[in-house]
């Protein structure tokens, strides 16, 4: 029994509707459910699912669609009613909770409320985001563009427009920033300090700011640029270069840290030149850069870091006026050896593979780059080598690192940092694979993220470990937590929950990846 309900002029953001869809699908007797706005794409989807008809044809992007397929008419009606109730509850909750938050219908009206607003945070559907961003720039606001799916030409046009006015466009696809001590979108509560960060990488920025906090330094500003800013030669690092120029002049910033995937060569040179000109000590980490020589010899004030942790340690040392010294492990070497011995004991003969299930894209990349030289071929949907991209992203091959934030996993679902079920579903699948020896996980805390990601993972980890034991083996789980003690989820609490579920928890993604490799290697020797 298929049922479609259309509620006219009732706009809701997609993340909320995806969560409602998830909740509806778990209701008894419901075989299929979609709660979505009537965009062209969603209408095509529903039409393909057999919900076509005059109601669907008559709907538009401002109309809320509730499509349910259920065992019988009563169940379908009940489910549709429940969906609308969920939607209304959110509205009521927002009305109550949001009493301190002024609400208006347009950017212009918002500027009537706070005429001296200086930042627009935009997380609208990509097709509209650029337009609102342009309006914000026209009104002299800096822009943080969380939205993805903004066309490249739009990004270039926006950044040109912004540059003429000296305004920042953080993004598109910029998930995190810390401005004046305030965490924006997905960001952690970090100590204020003198390290200025500019990053073309979301979870990279989160990991680095959290580790700098851990090493006793703090953040003056952390600017996100969006991934294409440096990678695409036509964008040319416009946001990054403006951020560096401003951090160079900012009296509260004494050290500049830059994080990015390898930029387009001209852009890399421009970034390094800008850092050299800043005259301040700078640390640069370019993830997965195979040939540092391509950068030429950096200026004396510019230091290249080998990974996110190294970048953080160097920046913290510079900020604290201490001399930098590389650190392999936070724990004593002997303790690491003991952990490796313990974790590698008891693998069944078939247990040979590592599976990394990541919610943070940059953290997945870092694990991939760290593990590849240690383990040989590592498969991943983030692989730059197409030969090592798994043919079916839902199925692991050998050693696999999965970036679960990839679009293939997030169609119709919120990002796995918000909705842990994408990862727990995959984890349940990996648990059925007798070849898995080590699971490698990230856990990203902070605003925007799930309130209890460790709690959501724990029962699935326990079940997976029990499955491995029932096959006569042992599943080793290694994780790192990106967060600070000030994050609302509680860094300690999350760490303890993971440990109680049998995981070894390390303070950085680098150390977690390294430890996972050692456990695997040691297990193979036995």
């Amino acid at each position: 029994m298929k049922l479609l309900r259309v509620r006219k002029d009732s706009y809701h953001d997609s993340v909320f509707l995806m969560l409602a869809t998830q909740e509806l699908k778990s209701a008894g007797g419901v075989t299929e459910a979609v709660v979505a706005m009537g965009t062209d794409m969603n209408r095509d989807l529903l039409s393909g699912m057999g919900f076509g008809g005059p109601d669907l044809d008559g709907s538009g992007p401002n109309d809320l669609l509730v499509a349910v397929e259920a065992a019988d008419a009563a169940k379908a009606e009940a489910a549709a009613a429940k969906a609308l109730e969920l939607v209304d509850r959110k509205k009521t909750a927002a009305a109550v909770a949001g009493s301190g938050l002024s609400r208006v219908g347009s950017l212009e009206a918002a500027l009537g409320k706070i005429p001296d607003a200086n930042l627009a945070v935009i997380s609208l559907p990509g097709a509209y985001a650029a337009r609102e961003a342009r309006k914000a720039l026209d009104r002299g606001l800096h822009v943080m563009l969380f939205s993805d799916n903004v066309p490249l030409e739009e990004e270039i046009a926006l950044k040109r427009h912004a540059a003429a006015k000296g305004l920042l466009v953080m993004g598109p696809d910029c998930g995190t920033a810390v401005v004046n001590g305030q965490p924006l979108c997905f960001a952690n509560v970090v100590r204020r300090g003198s390290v200025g960060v500019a990053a073309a990488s979301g979870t990279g920025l989160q990991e680095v700011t959290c580790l700098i906090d851990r090493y006793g330094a703090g953040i003056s500003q952390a600017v996100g640029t969006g991934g294409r800013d440096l990678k695409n030669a036509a964008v040319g690092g416009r946001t990054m270069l403006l951020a560096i120029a401003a951090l160079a002049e900012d009296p509260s910033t004494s050290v500049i840290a830059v994080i990015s995937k390898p930029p387009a060569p001209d852009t890399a040179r421009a970034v390094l030149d800008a850092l050299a000109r800043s005259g301040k000590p700078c640390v640069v980490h370019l993830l997965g850069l195979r040939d540092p020589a391509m950068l030429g010899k950096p200026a004396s004030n510019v230091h290249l870091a080998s990974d996110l942790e190294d970048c953080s340690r160097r920046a913290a040392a510079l900020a604290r006026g201490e001399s930098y010294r590389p650190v392999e492990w936070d724990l004593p070497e002997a303790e690491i050896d003991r952990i490796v011995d313990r974790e590698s004991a008891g693998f069944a003969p078939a247990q040979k593979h590592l599976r990394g299930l990541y919610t943070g894209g940059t953290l997945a990349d870092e694990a991939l780059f760290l593990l590849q030289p240690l383990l040989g071929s590592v498969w991943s949907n983030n692989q730059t080598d197409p030969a090592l991209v798994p043919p079916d992203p839902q199925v692991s091959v050998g050693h696999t690192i999965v970036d679960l934030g990839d679009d293939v996993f997030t169609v119709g679902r919120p990002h796995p940092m918000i909705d842990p079920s994408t990862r727990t579903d995959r984890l349940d699948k990996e648990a059925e694979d007798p070849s898995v020896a080590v699971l490698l996980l990230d856990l990203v805390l902070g605003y925007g993220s799930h309130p209890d990601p460790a709690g959501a993972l724990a029962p699935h980890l326990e079940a997976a470990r029990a499955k491995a034991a029932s096959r006569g083996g042992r599943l080793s789980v290694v994780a790192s937590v990106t967060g600070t003690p000030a994050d609302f989820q509680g860094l300690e609490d999350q760490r303890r929950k993971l440990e109680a579920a049998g995981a070894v928890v390390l303070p950085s993604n680098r150390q977690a990846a390294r430890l996972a490799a050692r456990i695997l290697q040691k297990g193979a020797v036995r």
Partner: protein
Amino acid sequence: MSAEPMNTKPVLNLFSGDLKVVNLGLEGFAETLAGRGVPTVQVDWKPPAGGRKDVIEALDAIARNPRVARANAEALSRILAGKPTLVGIGTALDTVPGMARDLILHAGPPVAWKDMAGPLRGAVIGGLLYEGLASTPEEAQSLAASGKIRFEPCHHHSAVGPMAGVMTASMPVWIVENQAFGNKAYCTLNEGLGKVLRYGAYSQEVLDRLRWMAGRLAPILAGALALRGPIDMKSLIAQVLQMGDEGHNRNRAGTSLVIRELAPYLALLDEPKEDVSKVFAFLNGNDHFFLNLTMPAAKCTVDAALGIEASSVIATMARNGTEFGIRVSGLGERWFTGPASVVEGLYLPGFSAADAARDVGDSVITETSGIGGFAMAAAPAIVKFVGGTPEDALNVTRRMYEITVGENDAYRIPALDFRGTPTGIDVCKVVETGILPAINTGIAHKEPGIGMVGAGLVKPPANCFMDAVLAFAEKYGE
């Protein structure tokens, strides 16, 4: 890549000042910031123009023309400069430009007899009977259908009419002059509630009342008015907004003020006491008497803003029971129409939504001029129409500031700290925000001859605003 010097000042200002954020999209981001004490405004965003790409492009093209903002400022200043003044009462045929014996004026955009809805048909029948052009309703219908009678909008004759808005040659009309610009507007006298012509009723009782109004009420009022001299309507409307009227669905304060203004002069007239007393009783028994004065006052005020090159201010909104239509200043006399909506409202005892006709009437000229639904915050007595609480009424008015060019300098709302009412509806803002004008209205029975069944709020059709934006962009887009 060259190392041209960069303008870092705005970013350094961001880094050194306090963060103040406008959040468009996921509410959680705004809640986080507000919870941390960062001044944050959440935009309840909707896809502009209902997501229609062509209309969004039109909006962008219009935004690129700097003349539009200047022209809208001019339109607003003309509306604010208006000085509507009640100057007299005349007969339609002698007074209303272009009026003729074979002409029936009606509310809303143009509509042919065959397309007219029940209340308008009823009022046309009543009008023909009243004029003696037909002697039975059946005869009136065949005459209306014969093509011998012309139908034109009141708006094409500097006039406005509530509900069906039917005006015929021998009806008495109020004459209101905009003394700032010299233009005039005309409107019939209000008949009261229940079975009345403007709701499509045409029984003998209705016709008798109309004849009494023309024969006794109008001459007596005209006499009093002549003694009194012109009445400044702007000042009266400003007062009623501070006495609990919003100028459209509540007219109790306004009607009372008119009685006060005229009473000393009514007493001086050399007319039979019984007739004068009946006039007083009629005014006192009809809370909406003032509406037919507010409407021509609003009409002559916004008419001064029609036809300004490059202005996207809405100069007319009106409904004929079949269609809702608007006219935009910079596009002159051209109508943009959409299907008239069903009114969401409260019903008189014995009636329900099933009895309701679609939205009808020129009374939405009040909203066009910045009162009515736009001044909902002024009228706590009728908040039941908008959700039930005074806060709901305040929010209706607050929202309207998002679609208007400016604020009224004469019409002010006590509950909003005497803020001026939202005035000068910009069709581009309506389409950009998806916020439709808030319109108060009465509800007529869908069958001719029955009359008023309730009152409420109407949501105008979005497409006429979008069509207007497309046409506007064609003429003024860059």
